């Protein structure tokens, strides 16, 4: 289908109102732990997530934003994003627990006491290393597979999403070596914190986030990661690389003809998406203190993909909002609705029993009503609009 040239579109953040809205949202999120404790006694706590739950919601939002690089910007359907989550989680486990107690005690800025066996790097370093390693993994996975087109790629990524958890599950005996503890998973992973040395230098920075305010610190860390991911998204989107991604998404052949190096551009989107997936995986693991192969199912990949598509594929604000909403529904909203329903009508409906059903109905309805997502990217909106106009001429023209 031939498309008329699209006008240059202003990014949503460039209008003053949008800027104000973003700033207000950010401030609200920043002070959320206080809001939560202030409204603790009111009915709102029924509906608002506590800070640990809010942490999980934000961490999953980071994954949604990471996947947006792959699916939203470069237009590569990835059904195995959970592989990156798993990689990040296990790297965090390796570098901040007693897993390799045989290697002696390596405590480098870790949040444990000196002399604890195993490797205990500073958790901030762990997140960074996990992200970088996962990005490399993204490249390694990408090189043989990114040549494939469309849904062939999707099914291969789905394959990796299944292979990597299975590798982790069977990784307790790799030629006799126990890498991953297999089904037992890894436990006793260090929490976040600044380490004793930093704490002694600057008392305001806690050695670890184990005091009663710790869930706030975790929450703020996740929020910071969300901000970093959003800023990276915007910067990259408006860069040369971002334009190359969009060119590939719109028409791979045309992009190649215009001199966009397909493989490298696609692989980079994959690597960057993986980077944030790994970071989020590491962060979640450091907070939970444990990880196990059970946590990495296709459902997680689908959950994260739904965030991107429901939010508004390719639009960083849409994906952020979609991520927060979907994760909220999953971790708090359904319970809250269920409890309210039960106490209002005096019933005893076991809501978690129906949560997937409700979830399924909700995403089907939502997509039917708003197939372009919550906040569609300006470019997509233009495309859809254009199609609707065409539709009036030829009913049900072939899909774009």
């Amino acid at each position, binding site marked *: 289908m031939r498309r008329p040239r699209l006008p240059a579109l202003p990014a949503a953040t460039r209008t003053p109102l949008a800027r104000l809205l973003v700033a207000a949202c950010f401030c609200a999120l920043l002070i959320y732990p206080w809001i939560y404790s202030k409204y603790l006694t009111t009915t709102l706590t029924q509906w608002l997530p506590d800070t640990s739950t809010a942490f999980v919601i934000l961490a999953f939002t980071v994954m949604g934003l990471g996947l947006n690089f792959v699916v939203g910007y470069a237009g590569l359907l990835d059904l195995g994003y959970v592989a990156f989550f798993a990689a990040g989680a296990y790297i965090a486990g390796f570098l901040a627990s007693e897993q390799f107690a045989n290697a002696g005690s390596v405590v480098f800025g870790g949040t444990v006491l000196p002399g604890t066996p195993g490797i205990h790097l500073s958790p901030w370093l762990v997140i960074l290393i996990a992200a970088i390693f996962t990005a490399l993994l993204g490249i390694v996975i990408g090189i043989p597979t990114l040549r494939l087109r469309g849904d062939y790629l999707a099914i291969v990524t789905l394959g990796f999403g299944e292979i990597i958890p299975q590798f982790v599950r069977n990784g307790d005996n790799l030629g006799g070596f126990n890498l991953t503890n297999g089904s037992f998973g890894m436990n006793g992973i260090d929490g976040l914190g600044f380490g004793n040395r930093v704490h002694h230098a600057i008392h305001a920075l806690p050695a670890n986030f184990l005091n009663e305010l710790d869930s706030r610190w975790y929450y703020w860390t996740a929020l910071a990661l969300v901000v970093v991911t959003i800023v990276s998204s915007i910067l990259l989107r408006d860069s040369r690389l971002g334009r190359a991604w969009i060119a590939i998404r719109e028409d791979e052949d045309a992009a190649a003809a215009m001199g966009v190096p397909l493989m490298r551009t696609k692989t980079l989107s994959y690597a960057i998406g993986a980077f944030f997936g790994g970071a989020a995986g590491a962060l979640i693991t450091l907070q939970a203190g444990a990880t196990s192969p059970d946590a990495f199912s296709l459902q997680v990949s689908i959950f994260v993909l739904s965030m991107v598509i429901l939010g508004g594929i390719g639009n960083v604000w849409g994906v952020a909002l979609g991520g927060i909403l979907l994760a909220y529904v999953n971790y708090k909203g359904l*319970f809250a609705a269920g409890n309210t329903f039960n106490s209002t009508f005096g019933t005893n409906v076991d809501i978690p029993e129906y*949560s997937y059903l409700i979830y399924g109905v909700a995403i089907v309805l939502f997509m039917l009503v708003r197939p372009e997502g919550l906040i569609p990217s300006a470019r997509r909106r233009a495309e859809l609009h254009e199609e609707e106009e065409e539709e009036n001429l030829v009913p049900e023209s072939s899909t774009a």
Partner: protein
Amino acid sequence: MSMRKLGSILLLAGATAVLATAAASAGPLSGKRIAGLPNTCSKPVGHGKYVIASDFPLQGSLRPLSVQMVEAVKLELKKMHYKIGKYSVQFVSCDDSTAAKGSWDPQTCTNNANSYKSVTNLLGVIGTYNSGCAEIIAPIINRAPGGGIPMVSPANTYVGLTKKSGVAGEPQKYFPTGKRNYARVAVPDNFQGAADALYLKHRHIKRVYVLNDAEAYGLGIANNFVRAAKKLGLTVLGNSKWDASQPNYQSLYQGIASKHPQAIFLAGIVSNNGGQLIKDKVSVLGNNTKVLLLASDGFNDSATPKDAGNSAAGMFITIGGSDPNKLSNPTGRAFVKAFRKAYHVKHLEAYTAYAGQALLVLAHAINKSDGSRLSIDKHLFKQKFPKGIIGSFKIDSSGDPSLGGVTVDVVKHGNIKAVTTVNPPLSLAKAALG
């Protein structure tokens, strides 16, 4: 307006209306819940300043078992009039399972644990059922402000939670602060593995093949069994994993058949396609008198005879501890009687008496403590219960009970019935640890 647009608007309006009703009705009826506790917890019973929570898988095929454990805890608390020493307590029952999985769920365990950590007046947790869930919860609540939240499990059997089991960092890694907060009254798996091997030896079995479900519990007990069996001189023909999502296992058993086993030992849980596993065992290797079938306590579940049907007939299933319906000590008999009367049931599930006992262990420690969490933690260990529900026993310095009896059950006419009790010698249980 086109039909399409009209349709979307109607849909949207409907969705908004549902949400609005839900939001509007949030008002006056809420507030009874205890702030900070997980979403998965029930409303509290009893009244008082402090809270005791239980944490079990309340959905899926283990529900009957879990519900009775909750009821046992409630029964004991009611007997104390919700007062432990000078502390008046409320009780909530929390759920670590999801309906979709029909069993415990790691993310739910993590969320529960993080919530427990934030509740300052939580005196202790009774739970969990699954060791895998305890592995997640214990280290998180160990780091709670004011000391680790005391946790007593009636049913965790995985060895590494309290003692070295061969996995790096166990058991210290479950207690990152270095101060333990976990005890249990269930018989650890090494006793069960040893008893299973011993029972096979009693039945003159020489060649056995082991299948495990590749989960922490199944793999752990399979390894315990293999070590004990080797120590007893049995030939272990193999110890392989079964894939729970495979449609059938005929090829697997045909591979095993060529090794001519006299017995198959299943280490795992029945909800991992255990029914099919038993059916295919019988269809390939013959019925359970021809090739003996023994399963660990993950199969001690009403789903086993239901899913496997006639194929389950004659299979043996072991379970750590003694059959609650046959307790012979006076305290135990009194408990069973009171429980049957209070809840109008005849049959007590496997861990019901243990749940009551777990609460008593926690209550005893609370009584002796100065009220701080660290003090309760300290008193969990080295307790003596000469007149406990489950018999006379001690809790040792690592939090394990001194009881090691294992009940062997058989499936007969669709029911699971106790046959005998095996008491493995301590040396064999140690050998099972490796």
